């Protein structure tokens, strides 16, 4: 083109227009993109607390304050005897119920050391739930040691699966943040939520164990296994966190296994010499009362355990278990 020859900058009108259009488009697109991705909330606080997950009450109306204390060395027998005093498992589990058994599978230790829920007890509970018509039984815990090893070495996985339950070993995605209304520690804290999807009944199954920091690890401390995240920092206020757990979790039933009580070196134990054959099965709907009695197996008083006192004050149950007129039966052999 002749224009070019006359134009000292060596650019034609057409080329100039094309370049200008490209430049304008680039400016417009980047300008719009910047506007689009701009953080409109940069001066707002990070994120308001989400309402998050909350545990419903699993307590069956009309069964409040039940407590049975059965002595005997055979877990299956004492459990059945205890439930018989309450009208059988059918009192608590209706046909179609979906039951979650919160076991204590904290440590990768064999069942003989009684640091974890006993597989006999787990399998018997699963069977009783299914016999009562439960549609599904889920067995879960978020252990301290390696989770898979815990469920297998404790014998819980095999016992539960053979009895027909589904074992859920938690994964990261199973936790959702929860906030306890009126709580100070459980605020936007990850809890084991997904296994509770569709669950209608909750049964806690825990052994009676010595625990240096809290005084005892029993039915209430067992709920600790529903906490995720860096739950260890709660040890700074162990009694408060157990109390908040007592407020947050209202189970259908707790089974506190004092067949072998871990008298010292708890909550891990590790030696048969840490155990004492106390041959007692505590079954009830009030975990605070169950723990208050469980403390006596350890030679302690409920009043020595601040978390029990706190749970009573918080309205989670009663420490004066005698007021519940517990049914005491002895099974032999």
């Amino acid at each position, binding site marked *: 083109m002749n224009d070019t020859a006359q134009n000292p900058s060596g650019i034609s009108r057409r080329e100039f227009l094309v370049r200008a259009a490209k430049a304008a488009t680039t400016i417009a697109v980047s300008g719009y993109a910047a506007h689009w991705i701009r953080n409109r909330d940069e001066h707002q606080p990070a994120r308001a607390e989400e309402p998050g997950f909350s545990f419903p009450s699993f307590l069956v109306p009309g069964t409040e304050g039940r407590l049975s204390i059965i002595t005997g060395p055979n877990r299956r027998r004492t459990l059945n005897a205890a439930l018989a005093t309450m009208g059988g498992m059918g009192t608590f589990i209706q046909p179609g119920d979906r039951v979650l058994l919160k076991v204590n599978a904290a440590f*990768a230790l064999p069942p003989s050391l009684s640091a974890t829920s006993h597989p006999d007890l787990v399998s018997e509970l699963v069977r009783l739930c299914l016999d009562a018509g439960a549609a599904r039984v889920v067995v879960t815990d978020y252990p301290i*040691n390696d*989770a898979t090893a815990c469920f297998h070495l404790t014998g819980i996985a095999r016992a539960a699966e053979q009895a027909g339950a589904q074992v859920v070993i938690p994964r990261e995605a199973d936790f959702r943040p929860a906030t306890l209304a009126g709580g100070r520690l459980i605020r936007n804290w990850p809890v084991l939520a997904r296994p509770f999807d569709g669950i209608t009944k909750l049964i806690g199954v825990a052994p009676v164990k010595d625990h*240096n920091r809290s005084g005892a690890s029993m039915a209430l401390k067992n709920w600790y296994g529903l906490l995720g995240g860096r739950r260890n920092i709660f040890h700074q206020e162990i009694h408060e966190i157990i109390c908040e757990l007592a407020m947050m979790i209202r189970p259908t039933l707790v089974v506190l296994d004092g067949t072998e009580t871990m008298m010292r070196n708890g909550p891990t134990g590790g030696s048969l010499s840490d155990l004492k054959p106390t041959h007692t099965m505590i079954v009830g709907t009030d975990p605070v009362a169950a723990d208050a009695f469980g403390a006596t197996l350890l030679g302690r*008083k409920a009043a020595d355990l*601040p978390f029990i006192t706190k749970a009573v004050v918080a309205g989670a149950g009663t420490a004066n278990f005698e007021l519940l007129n517990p049914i005491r039966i002895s099974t032999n052999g």
Partner: protein
Amino acid sequence: MKIVNSRRISQLFFLALFLWFCFVTTLGTAWWQLRGWPVNWFIYTDPLAALGLFLATRAIPATFLWAIGAVVLTVVFGRFFCGWICPFGTLHQLVGWLSHGRRPLIEKVKANDYRHAQRIKYGLLAFLLAAAAGGLVVEFATGTRFSGLSRVVAGSLQTGLLDPMALMYRSVNLALLPLADRATLATSLVPRGYAGAGLIGGLFLLAVALNVWIPRFYCRFVCPLGALYGVLGRWSLWRIGKTSPQCSMCMECESHCEGACEPSTKIRPAECVLCMNCLRACDDGVIAYRNAASVGGEITGLDLTRRGLLVSLASGALAVPMLRLGSLLGANWNPRLIRPPGALPEPDFLNRCLKCGQCMRVCPTNVIQPAGLEGGAEGVWTPTLNFRIGTSGCQLNCVACGHVCPTAAIRPITLDEKLGRNGFADAGPIRLGTAFVDHGRCLPWAMDRPCIVCQENCPVSPKAIFVRETFIPVRDGMHTVSHADELTIDLGAPVLAPQTFSTGDYYCRPLSDPDDSPRRIVANTDSMITLDSNRPFASPLRPGARVELLVRLQRPVVDPRYCIGCGVCEHECPVMGVKAIRITAENETRNPEHKLLL
């Protein structure tokens, strides 16, 4: 079937088998999980590892008889392993083919030219074997390993750095599989991670990417196992070669040659990986695999000068003694190097560890990690326990690492031996190290906060961590009683933060009676303290009396007689950045010179 198709099927089969073995190296009870799968088979077929082990320890584990088989087959048939089995070679061939397959003939021929740099791998082989042979040299020269000569001549097994079997296991175990597993969580409930996986995976990807430049780059220039097979296979009975000098020199054979061994002219049998591509490609039909030398001539030498070989051997022999000037095996040992249970004493360990990462892959808690420089340059990628990574410490009832280790650098111990039970009661449990409480960071020791998570989780009985109970005055905790009865003390002024002292850990003690044991506070408002109803004051404190608020602390103390160094305490310690209780290799069983107690 065409022979190259047989080769391809073989390669894909062994690659898939290799990946399957890595995948199933998972602890558990499912059918596919570790239960007798020969997951180390590729290592057992590895004559470089076997020769290295022999030079370093003067013994070869029986499982390495597979490698003898590989040697015999190589002497008869040539480098079949490289072309037909090696999973790393398969990857190289695949990437090389993808990036070169469609290029013009002349470019392919050029890429497959023999290069003098291919001698480097023989130099590396000589270097690594010389580095391993130190101990054997001492033993030959003096009759014992523990002579004064061992201060000057020393060896350690470093073949695993470049050995394709170790490299492949390491890269898949520690970088590729964890990455894939993060998406699927198929082999692990918790995403697994490995310190320094970026470097391990990065080197792997670099080695694979170099095929874009020159096909089978690693095999031709670097691979010390290929070099060993080359040395063994260059006189093989059967080999590739021309059957007639009549040849149109179309160069089709060389355009497909994997080994860069120049079959069109004087073939170099040491470089030939038996890919059989030339056989297929030759339009003149003059290339055959047979038990006679090529009519076109052979170059069986290794293109390695005597001087070059000597330099490689000498630098290998010097490398280890020079590295040991740093005294990492002596006074300057690194206390943060925690070896898995059953690991041999450090010099023996370094003579056996292939850095394959099998122990790290199988460890159920992911606590076994590849070392960086914790164990010095010799210890790169050897296993060390890092209690900040993973799901727990070393599990009391687990001995998986020793049972998967292909060379018994970590011995296959029994639970009885690990825990010091039954026949091992006299020896006591195997200690990996000892826990030390950092009084500057531990919450009860340094900051007057109750905690003792470590004590709770200590898995041995009796616990190696016990507590000392103390009552410590809280900051600004001295107050004057305004009014009091048996259970409550009114301070008359808002001097307290409400409910701060009601956690069950706070106590109150009248100064008038310092011998009286402190009374637990159950509740407090800003001016009022309520005490445990179990212990009312017989006579209420008088107005004006001074009371002191105390916090009850249980301070953890380690009893080294019982501590096995499992690291569960360190893992669980809520002080996350630098843990307030940490394991160091003090008192570890495997190195008696690290003994702590009398």
